[in-house]
């Protein structure tokens, strides 16, 4: 059963690889049908990943959160579901796949290169706080990546509008209703991610007390989560207090995600953390 699940995981990775290429071609050559086909391939990838996770859950008896293989797979799953739902409700965001699907591909790629052997769930992990911590972390990541996707679409649309309005005042682009909606969407998604990150940190602290005997131990991953939260707090202050709107907000949003992601990778490479037991 585990082998079949692993095969489906690989197939989901392949489907997302194809979708990444289709989105890139669609965006570069401005072919709507091509990235619409990409969305179809993402649906197929989601079905394969769902099958892989269900089979593995049945075989191991625990949810997909132990070890890097399972953790990254479930992060990718939540991101795909959120993207598909959001682009269905707001078709303006379909092109956000150019940013979102490569992230899914990278998550699955890193997952498939990790040890796939199932890990046992220790008694300390059977806690409601852990479920809240892990579940909210996945939704928070999806919100923040989708917000970045909305900012990518914003920048592309703003550039297209500027080109179309040669000779018109530069501020004309900011009156485009699509641009306004995209900006609002990205701000709301960042707000949701920021709120959920706070819940993730709080629930994690409560769980850590029962598992490790301490609410906060300055573990590198705890500090990384707090730093990411502070980064996004600053980004929201930029938007609300200092009115970083439009193109400036889009770049602040993308920069914050890039800085947080980069910090995570460097932390993973350099620092030691008990979290690696669960995250691989």
């Amino acid at each position, binding site marked *: 059963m585990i082998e079949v699940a692993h095969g489906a995981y690989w197939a989901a990775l392949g489907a997302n690889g194809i979708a990444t290429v289709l989105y890139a071609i669609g965006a570069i050559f401005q072919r709507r049908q091509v990235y619409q086909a990409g969305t179809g391939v993402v649906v197929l990838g989601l079905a394969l990943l769902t099958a892989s996770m269900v089979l593995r859950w049945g075989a191991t008896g625990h949810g997909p959160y132990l070890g890097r293989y399972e953790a990254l797979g479930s992060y990718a799953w939540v991101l795909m579901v959120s993207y598909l739902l959001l682009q269905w409700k707001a078709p303006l965001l379909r092109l956000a796949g150019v940013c979102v699907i490569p992230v899914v591909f990278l998550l699955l790629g890193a997952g498939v290169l990790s040890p796939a052997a199932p890990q046992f769930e220790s008694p300390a992990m059977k806690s409601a706080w852990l479920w809240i911590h892990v579940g909210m972390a996945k939704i928070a990541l999806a919100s923040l990546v989708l917000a970045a996707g909305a900012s990518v679409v914003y920048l592309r649309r703003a550039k297209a509008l500027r080109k179309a309005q040669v000779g018109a005042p530069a501020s004309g682009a900011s009156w485009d209703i699509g641009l306004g909606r995209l900006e609002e969407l990205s701000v709301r998604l960042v707000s949701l991610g920021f709120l959920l990150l706070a819940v993730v940190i*709080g629930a994690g602290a409560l769980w850590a007390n029962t598992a490790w005997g301490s609410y906060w131990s300055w573990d590198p991953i705890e500090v990384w989560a707090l730093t990411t939260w502070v980064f996004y707090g600053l980004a929201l202050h930029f938007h609300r207090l200092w009115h970083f709107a439009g193109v400036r907000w889009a770049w602040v949003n993308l920069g914050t995600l890039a800085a947080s992601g980069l910090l995570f990778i460097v932390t993973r490479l350099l620092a030691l953390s008990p979290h690696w037991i669960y995250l691989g």
Partner: protein
Amino acid sequence: MGLFLACLLLQALLPQLGAVPRLQYALWEARYPWLAQGVDVLGLNRIASTWWFWGLGFTLAGSLALSTGRRAVAMIRSGPSPRGPQLVLGVIPLGESPQGVPAILRHHGYATSISRAGVEGRKGTAGPWGSLLFHGGLVLLFLGVLVSAASRFRGFVELASDQAFQESSGYLVERRGVLSPRGLDFNATVLEMGVAFWPDASVKDIWAQVVVREEGSPFVEGVVRRNQNLRVRGTSLTLGSPFGAAALLQYTPSDGSGPLQGYVHFPAESPQNRFTIPGAGLVAEAELLGSWRQALERVAPSSPLVLRLTLVGEGNAPPPHELGLGESLAVAGGELTFAGLKPWALFMVSRDRGLPIMILGGLIALAGLALALFVAPRWVWVRPTEEGWQVRGQTPWEGASFRSEMRRIMVEMEGSRQ
């Protein structure tokens, strides 16, 4: 804020003493010796325990408290004030008085007030209050951290079932990262204990029935489970890892004096230990063999339970002795009996007076954050000018939805003129 962020970044990137296991830290030191030396000299491997980091944190907290206090006073006096770019929507010749405008604004959820200056509509003013609550909650959280740092302690004790805290081999209290022996201000006895070994274990199977007696307080009896603490007047009793088997050994001297009893603890992952037999002056190396886990889980053992003893004081390379449950061994000046096997566990006793303040601060901050992030305040003014009634709107951060609402309001106002 920049310095505080820099400290956080360094803590995320550099391993911190106390936050990572000592062995892992030693491996890191061996891998990057030049970096480890520099980090140690600068104190960057223990940032969270330095005075300058805490000083920086509390300077930030103090500044946040002051600015939040000033904002709170201003908002209590005059309510939330409009912020953000103003949007001039146009001028409508409504006539001498803006009849119908308040009704239109109320239809869109605005609270309206009419004065000589015109009509003012506002809604979503809970948002700025949420922001104030969020920052106030953070201040409370910092206050809780301060109280916790000053008063918090954690103590660790290993107990077998039917054993009292006072009979334990040692109770170590950690305060500000230092472990030291200390007396307890309450007495607790473990009546019974249930253990289970994972992967098949269920959390419900790991428990201890404890009786607690405090000075001048009634008897308290409760069950502490894995992931479920027992609280007695602000003190928490946590059942932690590791746990394992405690062998009850009885030494009976041949001179007829009374027998001596003691527990030898065997951790679940490696059931070996070394102990001294009191009275006999011998050191013994012990190992549990057979189905001891099944015996503790109260399942019929599939193989007999055996305690293998190697008496170190008996000359070179002595042969090991194997004792079944209830069997005895003749040792110097007496007899050693393997009298029983019980589960044991590590208990944590903790008291943190800052915790309720931190939890309250966290909850207030979360509630405030939800309001601040998702309730956007909006203001609309309809004021007389020479050309007619000028309609203006203001909101700090909403773009498209505010514009579309303003457009609808304008259409309705123009419609009301006809």
